[in-house]
């Protein structure tokens, strides 16, 4: 398949089941809501070493938030419910509770509830106040700038992590420009995050390493500087490869995000130095979710 001169490989991205939650951060203005959200979703690019993958899903207008202030929705993904709960609580406590004027609410509801403010309340040292509003339980924790309002729990849902595609370009600036265009388009899609810095990862990994104890190492088949010394997957004109990793609340959400992302990349086309779009997988044996690029773009 070729779109606007860009070859879409006959391959697939392989993704895994994860557990996810959404939290809504509000603040005095959007700037401070974003600051809290960026702190909360920092150091959360990959479950390999961060414990979770997290990102800003979208900004919310005052009409869309529970307390009528500007807000930000964040999604957090982890391999299991226990890890997700731990990461959520730690990040809420260290990054949102501490952020001026912030409040924190559940962004998703399900039968499985995980603590949001349920344990953070103890920071109130006995001065915290519970309030049930509209059937939902909130905690008002006295803090130095007033009160930190936090919903007691949020929901945990099944999700999919690790959807991806690779952008192969003739130069690094061209690969970056294509990825930026893709991320701009993909950020408009709900229920997904691209957890890596700016949504783009330049150090895609393969499973295993020559070194003991390392379970992931550089994806040498896609490293342009190794073209002459490894079983490369790159043609001579490819000088730079970048990857976009997508976590979503469902397979369909990732499908849609990949579609608009690849469309944006192909929109720039071969004229902008974009030669191929590929995807990362492990032979299809590890992850139950397969995203076939040509099917998505059909």
């Amino acid at each position, binding site marked *: 398949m070729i779109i606007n001169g860009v070859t879409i490989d006959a391959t697939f991205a392989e993704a895994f089941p994860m557990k996810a939650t959404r939290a809504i951060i509000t603040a005095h203005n959007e700037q401070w809501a974003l600051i809290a959200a960026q702190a909360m979703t920092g150091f959360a690019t990959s479950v390999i070493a961060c414990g979770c993958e997290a990102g800003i899903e979208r900004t919310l207008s005052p009409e869309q938030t529970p*307390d*009528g202030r500007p807000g930000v929705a964040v999604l957090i993904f982890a391999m299991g419910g226990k890890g997700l709960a731990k990461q959520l609580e730690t990040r809420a406590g260290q990054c949102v509770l501490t952020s001026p004027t912030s409040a924190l609410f559940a962004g998703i509801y399900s039968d499985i509830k995980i603590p949001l403010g349920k344990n953070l309340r103890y920071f109130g040292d006995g*001065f915290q106040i519970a*309030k049930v*509003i509209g059937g939902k339980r909130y905690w008002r924790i006295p803090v130095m700038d007033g*009160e930190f309002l936090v919903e007691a729990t949020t929901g945990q849902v099944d999700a999919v992590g690790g959807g991806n595609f690779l952008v192969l370009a003739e130069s690094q600036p061209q690969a970056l420009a294509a990825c930026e265009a893709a991320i701009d388009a993909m950020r408009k899609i709900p229920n997904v995050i691209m957890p890596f810095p700016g949504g783009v990862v330049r150090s895609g990994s393969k499973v295993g390493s020559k070194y003991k104890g390392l379970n992931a190492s550089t994806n040498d088949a896609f490293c342009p500087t190794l073209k002459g010394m490894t079983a490369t997957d790159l043609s001579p004109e490819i000088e730079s490869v970048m990857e976009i990793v997508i976590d979503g609340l469902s397979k369909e959400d990732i499908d849609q995000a990949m579609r608009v992302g690849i469309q944006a990349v192909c929109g720039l086309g071969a004229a902008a130095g974009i030669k191929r779009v590929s995807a990362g997988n492990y032979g299809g044996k590890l992850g139950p979710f397969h995203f076939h690029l040509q099917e998505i773009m059909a």
Partner: protein
Amino acid sequence: MSALTFTLKIRPAQRVDMSPLVCQQLQGKDPSDIAAIELQSGNRKLRADELFAISGSDAQHIIIKNSFDKLDFIGKELNGGSITVEGDAGAYLAMGMAAGAITVSGNAGLYAGCEMKKGYLEIAGNTGDFLGGTLPGNKMGMKGGLILVKGNAGERAGDCLRRGTILIEGNAGDYCGSRMIAGTIAVMGQTGRYVGYAMRRGTLLLWHTPPLSASFNDCGTHTLAFLPMLFKTFAPLHSKFADSSAVFNRTRRYAGDMAEMGRGEILVKQP
């Protein structure tokens, strides 16, 4: 299917226990069985059809017409469905209600909504003492749900309130929120003496500064984020509380009752 309607034919001299006439007990019963239900009145038992003209068949929607202030225990332990009272209600209205909705077009007597667990109670007129309170000897009053009083409330409104919300558009008598354990009481009108007497936790939201006892400490004026959220939940009500002009988030906070646990608060609207 029209609402099951009980139209009062005579006003007995003695009080009447209306507790058998709740939706869950009438569901699926034949009209003859409903007519034969015995209601305690003083030391007598009266058949339902002696007191009421009965029509309709939808037991999930009960209407009591020509009601007056001696009909006690209306909607006692109601567990779903609705009861509409046209006229006044006696004491113990909606006592222990677990679910459903009760509306009264007139006044209600003592202990309206006492020990209510969930559901919605609306009283268009005034109500007596111990609104949403606890029965003598018991430790917990209303445990959930919402009570809206469009008139005035008597003394001890929300006595031992455990959870839930009481909204009073008019005035509240003395000891409003006494012995509150938690929950919320909002009073748009004036309040009497000893507001929040011995309250442990919970929120009293007042439109006018009450005469406060010495065991409430002034914590200053604050903008509280939870208040607009609380008001938003009142929006569906046919009430002054649903009016957007009623919404405020600037309050003066008094903590107390320091003679008790002291984790409660009286929030007074600030300009």
